[in-house]
């Protein structure tokens, strides 16, 4: 059967390489020009939990994974138990009779196909370690869709290359055996993907994209304490020498944010990343950046909370916290990219905004966006340009007597790279006068608060309004933010196949909120609905807070899992 879309899922016990196996499968399609989006699920346990990896492959443009699975690879019985109901009519479950008694399962789903592959037998006959059943399953899967085994073999070579040829060969061999087993057993190709232009695509997660954007933007100092999105830490650490970046795994999150502030104070672009708990601990530091007017970029990856919560799952529960975080009132920018591509470009933008306005800029991700791979043609990194704003880096740039917090018309005071002659000042966490000296008078306080807030005028002109996707004249308008973008676009495309029913207003810039421009796009005549991955509909709240407009319809999900397009469709269909 020729298909343009195919969803493949693999499941098994934690600690058996499900995540890297999935990634290989994604890669072999992205490499050949297919659109790929994947998503993994695992527990906050090193062993013993249940892991899955879901990949959607398409010959067209796609925006998210979906619910219906065409091929489910079950490396243990639990996978069948938990996921067989997700398999689409006519789909396939690949399993090993050694792992499970298939009889009862079959009774429940007479509409799907069960394909036995003796994973462990193949592996033990080959004398390979048990974890290589993964490769057998990959080979079998490639065969099931009549894909090119060579591509898989090449990717395996790439990835396991540095482990030596023996390992590589065993890996390849086991995938071949899986492939051959299927080819021999099934005479027909059960699925076959439509052909696409073979332009190799990158496969990046939100974390990868933020990292890439930051390196391009000239981030020179990255500090973190291990926590989601920890792969950003690992990425920076892996290239710090080559790109002249200092990466610091610090003792705690207070150290992290304050080190970054120190680095930024002397002129280095600096970034930190964390999730909820760490962000909570950074709050005081953020307020210090605000008061001293030190630029800083903070990545906040959302996980189900409060407290430790569900550390390996996803949610959008921290928006209002980020927007109002830290004591006192101060300007900040809060950005929530919708996909890895936006992560890349908006990270570049985040550094510019931080520098130009000398404020903290918060980039909000969530675990889903952070760790799911999306395929893209190469990012055009030249589109990220560097604007450091009013930064004086040479003594001779200083014109007359220098006043760090000079009360300018736009509120932005020229900043110096600390250490140059003529620029001496105090960056002061106390309220201060134009020179930076601590100053408590009512008069000065008002001037300085006004100065710092006055920056909002230019800032709000510069940040773009939310993007509108889909027909202008739709009947239903979905309002959303961040990573919900993909599933909504998928849902929208399906719903609009017949009529122009739905469009999407997607916020990537959450704060400052341009009330006027948003009021301008609210169509009261429409059916408006928010879609959010949280319990309390935080976007609806911030819209109401700033425009007074109440969006009554809400599609909310707070089970620790991201939306699937199907859920949004059914939510929208219920709107009256």
């Amino acid at each position, binding site marked *: 059967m020729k298909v343009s879309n195919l969803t493949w899922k693999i499941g098994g016990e934690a600690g058996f390489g499900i995540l890297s196996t999935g990634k290989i499968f994604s890669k072999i399609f992205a490499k050949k020009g297919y659109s790929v989006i994947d998503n993994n699920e695992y527990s906050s346990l090193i062993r013993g939990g249940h892991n899955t990896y879901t990949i959607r492959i398409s010959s067209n443009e796609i925006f998210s994974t979906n619910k219906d699975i065409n091929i489910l690879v079950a490396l243990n019985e639990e996978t069948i138990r938990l996921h067989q109901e997700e398999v689409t009519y006519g789909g396939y479950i690949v399993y090993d009779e050694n792992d499970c008694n298939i009889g009862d399962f079959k009774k429940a789903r007479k509409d799907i196909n069960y394909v036995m592959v003796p994973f462990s037998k193949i592996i033990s006959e080959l004398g390979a370690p048990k974890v290589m059943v993964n490769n057998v399953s990959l080979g079998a899967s490639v065969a099931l869709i009549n894909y090119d085994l060579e591509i898989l073999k090449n990717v395996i070579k790439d990835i396991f290359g540095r482990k030596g040829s023996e390992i590589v060969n065993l890996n390849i061999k086991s995938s071949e055996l899986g492939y051959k087993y299927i080819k021999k057993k099934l005479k027909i190709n059960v699925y076959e993907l439509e052909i696409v232009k073979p332009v190799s695509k990158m496969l990046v997660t939100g974390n990868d994209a933020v990292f890439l954007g930051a390196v391009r933007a000239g981030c020179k*100092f990255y500090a973190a304490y291990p926590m989601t999105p920890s792969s950003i830490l690992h990425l920076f650490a892996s290239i710090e020498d080559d*790109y002249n970046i*200092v990466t610091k795994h610090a*003792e705690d999150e207070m*150290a992290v944010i304050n080190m970054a502030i120190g680095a930024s104070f*002397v002129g280095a672009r600096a970034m930190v990343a964390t999730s909820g708990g760490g962000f909570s601990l950074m709050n005081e530091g953020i307020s210090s950046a605000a008061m001293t007017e030190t630029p800083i970029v903070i990545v906040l990856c959302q996980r189900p909370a409060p407290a430790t919560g569900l550390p390996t799952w996803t949610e959008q529960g921290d928006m209002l916290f980020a927007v109002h975080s830290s004591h006192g009132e101060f300007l900040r920018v809060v950005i929530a990219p919708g996909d890895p591509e936006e992560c890349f470009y908006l990270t570049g933008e985040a550094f510019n905004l931080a520098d130009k306005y000398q404020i903290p800029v918060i980039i909000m991700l969530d675990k889903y966006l952070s760790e799911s791979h999306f395929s893209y043609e190469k990012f055009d990194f030249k589109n990220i340009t560097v604007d450091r704003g009013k930064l004086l880096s040479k003594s001779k740039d200083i014109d007359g007597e220098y006043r760090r917090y000079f009360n300018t018309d736009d509120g932005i005071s020229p900043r110096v790279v600390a250490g140059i002659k003529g620029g001496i000042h105090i960056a002061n966490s106390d309220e201060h006068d134009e020179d930076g000296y601590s100053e408590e008078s009512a008069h000065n306080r008002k001037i300085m608060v006004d100065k710092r807030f006055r920056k909002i005028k230019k800032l709000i002109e510069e940040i773009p309004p939310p993007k509108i996707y889909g027909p202008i004249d739709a009947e239903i308008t979905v309002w959303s933010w961040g990573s919900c973008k993909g599933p909504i676009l998928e849902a929208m495309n399906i719903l609009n196949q017949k009529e122009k029913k739905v469009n999407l207003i997607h916020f990537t810039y959450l704060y400052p909120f341009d009330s006027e421009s948003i009021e301008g796009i609210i169509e009261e005549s429409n059916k408006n609905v928010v879609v959010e991955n949280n319990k309390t509909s935080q976007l609806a709240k911030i819209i109401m807070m700033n425009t007074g407009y109440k969006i009554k319809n809400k599609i909310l999900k707070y089970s620790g899992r991201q939306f699937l397009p199907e859920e949004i469709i059914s939510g929208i269909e219920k709107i009256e």
Partner: protein
Amino acid sequence: MVMDKTKSKYSKENYNLKPGDFNTERKPTWCSGCGNYGIWNSLKKTFVKLYLMPHEILIVYGIGCSGNGANFIKTYAFHALHGRALPVATGAKLANHKLNVMIIGGDGDGVGIGGNHFMHTCRRNINMTYLLHNNKVYGLTTGQTAPTSDKGFKTKSTPSGVLEKPVNPVLLALASGATYVARGFSGDTSHLSEVIRKAIKHKGFSFIDVLQPCVTFNKQNTYDFYREKIYKLDEIKSYDKSDLNEAIKRSMEEEKIPIGIFYQVERPLYEDGLKQIERKPLVDHIITDIDINRLLNNYY
């Protein structure tokens, strides 16, 4: 060695600053008699001795009476949050290791709320100098117990007397791996300024516990109290500064209080391990058009 702090471009010949040139336009607001004056004076004197210019120095301050010094010493200054001076200094130093970075803060700031940073900064051995203004009390918040307060010390927050064993900053620095650990007394500015000078010249993380009488809130650890108890390690001929066990032993003395250098050794700097700053400081890199093609290619 790139890792050296900037040797001032100035020398005896072309340097003409006096300690007073390190005064800002603001007069100190410390209580008269406060030990902070002695430290302030020693510090300015030391800068002159080392031919340092104000812009060659960055001092990161904590919050406290001591931290208010940010307003009174003319160098680049970052008046950080309470307890967070060390990480700010660390970030600044790693981003521009040519700067002479110092840290000034109180005992509450340094070993109370900031204790974790203290421990970890010591083991890091970054080339900076930390002056702990140890008045054994919380000055700025008007006199509560400090982690360094003696057992039994009575304050508003412990009116029946402190129940804990005090933190010993010198011992803690030694146990955590600082490579230069000293104690000074703000009542002996010429000794103190020598200790500071050697600390700044030391290649590594240098820590000085400065005994600083708080005349307003600590009536126990007074100038007289210290004058009676203090003795100088440098006057003990046999004292071996490189012997950690000996340093630890001395640090635990209570009847008599040693001042001077307890311990000094050379260990590779943290910065020495950073290839990325071997050629030049991070901040000196041009960032306007960084080519990330090689990185992007990893994603295929």
